[in-house]
């Protein structure tokens, strides 16, 4: 190829950092260039001077600052002497440095049918890492090099082959091809190489990469090192815009509509992905790129027209040069596995950190841990860890305790309604503006439906499993959370383990599980995690960590408050009191803490705001005082001082009160230890908060809208707080208590302290024994979901207009009724029932049926969609007689002889005039978005991807 003429064409903009080396590279070529022309687009760093100095004034063209790459090249071509046969242009960037033999190797590879040749690009300055050996584009616009990022060049890709395009840095191109096809000025900086290669391919030219030719490339523009007015600060947007443009102008016409839709949706998904990893800048770039590209549709049309002129081969003939269609999916899979790997790695890192810490500690576990190899397997570590044994024992005990609840049917009873058949029920209830419950209700769905629905979805739609797991794994799960939290407060794993087990038992010893009090159980599960996150508000070293802690604590707080709104009220009260105290004693800290604490509460409240407002508007104050589930005030006894001190909010289902004496005594004695007193006092402040809330709410009765009755409040949450804080105080004071007692002779305190330690240690053990023996027997039970004949629920399920009016009671004690739709009430429905006022016509109808039914009684039943009337035993004789006497109401078969059932002859048509709140689904959707945003902000900060 000695006859070939090669003109090196270097385009420079602010490349003074690299230019001297680049120029050295060009001049030291084993096959020197025949001419060297440079275009400087108004560099401000003296690049032009360097060029002029090295190449002479006549070889350096002055371009304008905003000239796109295409314009600069075209300008240079215009000043070249007339083309000769076999003339090549070697395009170089100011940051691309060719190896000495690069040009020679390129020219050696040239054949008549090859129009474009490209070198192997290696990273500059590392020199060893591969950047590109030709490049193509995927269907989503991703630039594909076929290389792993940071792959070292070991000759593994050294195969001369046809490619779609080669980078313009080091591209050797026939002059006539360059002049015919040219670069597109619509692509100012990025993507013009792929576009050029694609068009060259369509014009029937071959593009070949020559691995023996090496050019080192700094990728200054791509890495954002060089900002020009053309790239601007948003180089991601410019890149993405170029990719979209390239795909849309070069792709086939037939595929254009599909491509338009796919790229739009793809961009939106990518945007969402960027938002999820807290990269709002990139997300904005994605959106801006697609909007800008699609907004200039005329440019796309013009671009396609230009390409049609030079195209000589069909689209499908160049298709093999494009990236395979499956590649984007492969990237998606890679991304997911990367994320999973990152999570696993992080967990492994944490485990390693824990091991390291454990090695620094003394004690039996640590000695054993020391004897293990640092990289011993997970199983080996678990087997050697008494902590793992304790939690395994808790799981076994949990399995033992549920023995009374094995078998078919759903859990229900006490405050718990049966779970629905699938999590979809909860989703639809959460989003619908009108509920087909009883006479129809517009009550807002309670906020805990969303977490239940989400959990149910994760468990493959099995709603019953959510409830079962919540109730039956409450002890080990709460114990684990508390153990993790207490490990933050104490260096002693025994104290933390003791506290974890003692806390874990609270849901069962208090009777919350047995009574089916979902609110208290969930609060017990969430509280340690909330406390853990809230702790970071005080100890976080960086603002970023603190801000994440705010969102994390807010999410936990919102979750607990969704099930038990009292948690939010306690948090607000606690924050206000704490800030008042801080402002008084440490005003210097008050402002910072106020921001964190109020921020936490505000974010949690914002997450719950639509529900809080809607529920307040619908249910009034009861919405804030009643927790998830039926009020079931018949299970709440009179609250004595003993009940308060020992944490027994209810009469039914809990452990004997004396079982908790040890914790109460130890919490008081914990105050005696002077070196931990400050932190014990902090824990005690939460004891006081819980006690104050109990004192305030103990005498309160709230009116339940659905029944019109006044009910006592279940005070499980404040008493849980009291017990949790007491356990924390004991665990903190119990740190190193053995040494404290054995090394210090301090008179009477020593035997008293020892006795208290023994009592405290024994307390959870006795609790565990009680739990194992008593199980979780209580009002909750597993069995038939409804006490209504199956054929009725089947009919109601087929057609919700065929309601079942269940009436219980007697003339003397009064009657209670419920109008069942579908298969009856399910978890969450208790909060959405129509108000007593809305049910007034039905109440009057039942009153009439129980006294003197008028001739209109039947038509009233038809209007309200009552197909069946069911009276479980014992049946009020007058009611039964009245119903028997009604013409059009025929006796139907009932479950038991003592029960009675009637069926309306003929069809029932409900005329409820559904007037749902159309805004409700949007509000809930907005809330879901809010939760996702909060979760994104709570997640670990994404390390900015190195470019």
């Amino acid at each position, binding site marked *: 190829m000695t006859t070939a003429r090669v003109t090196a064409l270097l385009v420079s903009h602010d490349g003074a950092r690299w230019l001297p080396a680049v120029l050295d590279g060009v001049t030291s070529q084993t096959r020197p260039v025949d001419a060297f022309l440079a275009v400087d687009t108004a560099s401000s760093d003296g690049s032009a001077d360097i060029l002029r100095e090295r190449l002479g004034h006549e070889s350096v063209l002055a371009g304008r600052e905003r000239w796109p790459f295409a314009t600069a090249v075209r300008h240079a071509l215009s000043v070249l002497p007339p083309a000769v046969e076999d003339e090549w242009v070697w395009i170089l960037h100011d940051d691309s440095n060719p190896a000495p033999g690069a040009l020679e190797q390129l020219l050696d590879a040239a054949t008549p049918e090859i129009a474009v040749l490209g070198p192997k690009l290696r990273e500059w300055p590392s020199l060893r890492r591969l950047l590109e050996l030709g490049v193509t584009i995927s269907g989503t616009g991703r630039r594909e090099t076929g290389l792993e990022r940071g792959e070292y060049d070991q000759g593994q890709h050294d195969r001369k082959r046809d490619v779609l395009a080669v980078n313009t840095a080091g591209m050797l191109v026939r002059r006539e091809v360059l002049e015919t096809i040219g670069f597109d000025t619509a692509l100012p900086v990025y993507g013009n190489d792929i576009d050029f290669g694609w068009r060259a391919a369509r014009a029937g030219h071959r593009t070949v990469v020559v691995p023996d030719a090496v050019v080192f490339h700094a990728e200054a523009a791509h890495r954002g090192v060089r900002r020009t007015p053309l790239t601007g600060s948003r180089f991601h947007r410019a890149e993405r815009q170029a990719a979209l443009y390239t795909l849309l102008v070069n792709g086939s016409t037939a595929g254009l509509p599909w491509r338009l839709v796919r790229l739009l949706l793809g961009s939106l998904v990518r945007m969402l992905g960027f938002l999820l990893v807290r990269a709002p800048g990139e997300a904005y770039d994605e959106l801006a790129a697609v909007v800008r590209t699609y907004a200039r549709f005329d440019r796309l049309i013009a671009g396609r027209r230009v390409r049609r002129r030079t195209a000589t081969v069909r689209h499908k003939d160049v298709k093999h040069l494009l990236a395979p269609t499956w590649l984007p999916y492969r990237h998606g899979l890679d991304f997911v596995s990367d994320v999973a790997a990152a999570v696993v790695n992080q967990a492994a890192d944490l485990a390693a950190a824990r091991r390291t810490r454990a090695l620094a500690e003394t004690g039996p576990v640590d000695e054993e841990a020391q004897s293990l190899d640092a990289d011993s397997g997970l199983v080996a570590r678990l087997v050697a860890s008494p902590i793992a044994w304790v939690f395994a024992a808790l799981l076994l005990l949990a399995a033992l305790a549920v023995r009374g609840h094995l078998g078919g049917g759903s859990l229900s009873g006490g405050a718990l309604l049966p779970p629905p058949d699938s999590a979809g029920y909860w989703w639809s209830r959460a989003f619908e503006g009108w509920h087909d419950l009883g006479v129809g209700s517009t009550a807002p769905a309670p906020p805990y439906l969303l977490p239940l629905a989400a959990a149910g979805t994760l468990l493959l739609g099995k709603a019953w499993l959510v409830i079962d797991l919540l109730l039956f794994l409450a002890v080990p799960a709460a114990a684990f959370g508390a153990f993790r939290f207490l490990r933050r407060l104490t*260096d*002693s794993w025994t104290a933390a383990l003791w506290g974890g087990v003692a806390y874990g038992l609270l849901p069962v010893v208090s009777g919350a599980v047995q009574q089916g009090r979902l609110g208290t159980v969930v609060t017990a599960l969430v509280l340690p995690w909330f406390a853990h996150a809230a702790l970071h508000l*005080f100890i976080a070293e960086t603002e970023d960590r603190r801000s994440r802690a705010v969102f994390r604590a807010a999410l936990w707080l919102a979750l607990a408050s969704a099930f038990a709104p009292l948690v939010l009220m306690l948090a607000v009260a606690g924050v206000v009191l704490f800030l008042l105290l801080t402002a008084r*004693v440490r005003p210097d800290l008050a402002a910072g803490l106020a921001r964190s604490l109020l921020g936490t509460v505000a974010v949690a409240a914002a997450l719950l705001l639509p529900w809080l407002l809607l529920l307040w508007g619908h249910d009034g104050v009861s919405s804030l005082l009643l927790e998830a589930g039926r009020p079931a005030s018949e299970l709440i006894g009179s609250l004595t001082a003993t009940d308060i001190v020992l944490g027994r909010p209810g009469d039914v289902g809990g452990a004997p009160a004396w079982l908790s004496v040890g914790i109460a005594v130890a919490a008081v004695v914990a*105050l005696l230890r002077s070196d931990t007193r400050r932190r014990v*006092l902090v824990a005690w402040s939460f004891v006081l908060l819980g*006690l104050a809330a*109990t004192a305030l709410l103990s005498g309160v009765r709230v009116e339940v809208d659905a029944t019109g009755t006044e009910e006592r409040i279940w005070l499980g949450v404040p008493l849980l707080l009291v017990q949790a804080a007491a356990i924390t105080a004991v665990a903190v004071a119990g740190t190193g208590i053995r*040494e404290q007692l054995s090394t210090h002779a301090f008179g009477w305190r020593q035997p008293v302290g020892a006795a208290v330690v023994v009592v405290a240690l024994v307390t959870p053990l006795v609790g565990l024994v009680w739990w194992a023996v008593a199980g979780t027997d209580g009002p909750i039970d597993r069995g038939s979901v409804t006490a209504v004949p199956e054929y009725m629920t089947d009919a109601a399920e087929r057609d919700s207009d065929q309601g079942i009016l269940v009436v219980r009671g007697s003339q003397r004690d009064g009657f209670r009724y419920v109008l069942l739709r579908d298969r009856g009430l399910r978890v969450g429905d208790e909060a959405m029932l129509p108000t007593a006022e809305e049910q007034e016509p039905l109440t009057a109808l039942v009153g009439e049926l129980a006294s*003197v039914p008028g001739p209109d009684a039947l038509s009233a039943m038809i209007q309200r969609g009552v197909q069946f009337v069911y009276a479980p035993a014992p049946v009020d004789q007058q009611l039964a007689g009245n119903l028997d006497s009604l013409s059009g109401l025929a006796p139907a078969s009932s479950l038991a002889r003592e029960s009675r059932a009637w069926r309306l002859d003929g069809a029932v048509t409900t005329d409820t005039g559904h007037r749902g709140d159309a805004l409700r689904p949007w509000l809930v959707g907005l809330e879901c978005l809010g939760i996702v945003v909060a979760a994104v902000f709570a997640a670990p900060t994404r390390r900015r991807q190195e470019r």
Partner: protein
Amino acid sequence: MSEPRPSGARRAARAPRSPLPRPPVNATSLTVAVVLVAVVLVLLTPGRPGTADRPTSATGQPVTRTVLGCPRSPVPEGVTTRYGVAAAEVDGYGADGEVSGTPRLDRGEASDLTATTVTGVDGLAQGLFAWRADSGPSTAVTTCPSPRASWWFTAVGASLEHQSTLVLDNLDSGPAEVDIRVLTPEGEIDLSETGGTGITIRPGGHLVLPLVELAPQNDELAVHVHATRGRIVAAAYDRFAPGPTAPSGYEWIGSQVEPARTVRLSGAPGTPRSRTLLVANPSTLEAVVSVELDGPSGRVLPPDLDQLSVDPGALVALDLTALASEDVAVRVVSDRPVVASLRSVVRDGDIVYAGPAGAVTDAAALPTVGRSVAHVTALGATARVTLTAYSSTGEEVERTTLALALHETATWRAPDEASYVVLEPTQGPVVGSMVYGGAAAVAFQELPATVRIPVVRPAA
């Protein structure tokens, strides 16, 4: 457990790193204060308020529909039966509405009934009452009750000298199913094989059931008619001969809704030939019963009778002829719920039953048939009642006020031209009855005025 060392676990939040405020006050006093506040909070916590689950009292609303069913039955030869209905004249009762079974009836009027079922709606549902009067060799009167599920008849019989017949009517549009229970002096009889249970009465149906078919050869019985499905109107007519050769008397027996610990029987005219109290104990435990008689001069206790014991499921007859000189009301008090009735054999062998009478605190009314004498007994300390006789056109014929001392029974004869008598207590509750020609008695019952609407609540 070891005391934390400064170089120990990094994860534990230790005091120096935490910007928690340091309390400026003495730690000991703060500790004491914290414990004191906790104690005060626990002690200040008020007890839980009582539960409001149990509903409060039921409310009364004006009745707008009254259905009454008169017993239909074959009558002995020579007996003439008349059915009557009246919308009693009582202040405050409505005047609008309609009454079926009679051409036209306005407030205050009484009229013959052309059907055995009568329905009053709207205003005329209040104060509506109907009756059946049989006259001939023997006089028998009964009122027409509303359908219900439970009916007790005491002092019925199923022997040659004493034959009773149940008359059951189903006024409703749905079928009724009836179980019958029979108590004898020897105990309860199992009727499952004699067809006493699961008796179906079709809508609008009528069933005449002689007790001899169910429990033959039993002189004295108590019967419970219980509709396990639907409602019925039940009545029992009774033929009784004091001896094998004596002529038999004919009478309707008053019903009792449910057994009670105190049963009051009113309508025992004075100087009968004999008086027999019958008490049955449907419970499963022995009942210890005492009997008191309230006459014109107050309470009289039967001599030689401290307490009467009634076995479970059994019936006991107590002869009270020794105390038969005066018009009396009887009070049966038991430690178990019982049912009772008082049979008086009067001159010429006719019989009168003093049936269970409910306490009257509001207006009650009964028809006049022949020589009609009202018996009124004070239940409380003293009582005052107004008795007003009305003609069939609603005109007031005569009015009297009776002041009754404790346990006193007073009588007042209604004028012959009266069609019905309204009894209105103005002070204290009373029981009362109307004794017709000394040969029949019917207890006063409060007129339908208000309906008790039970407390109904939606359940959560």
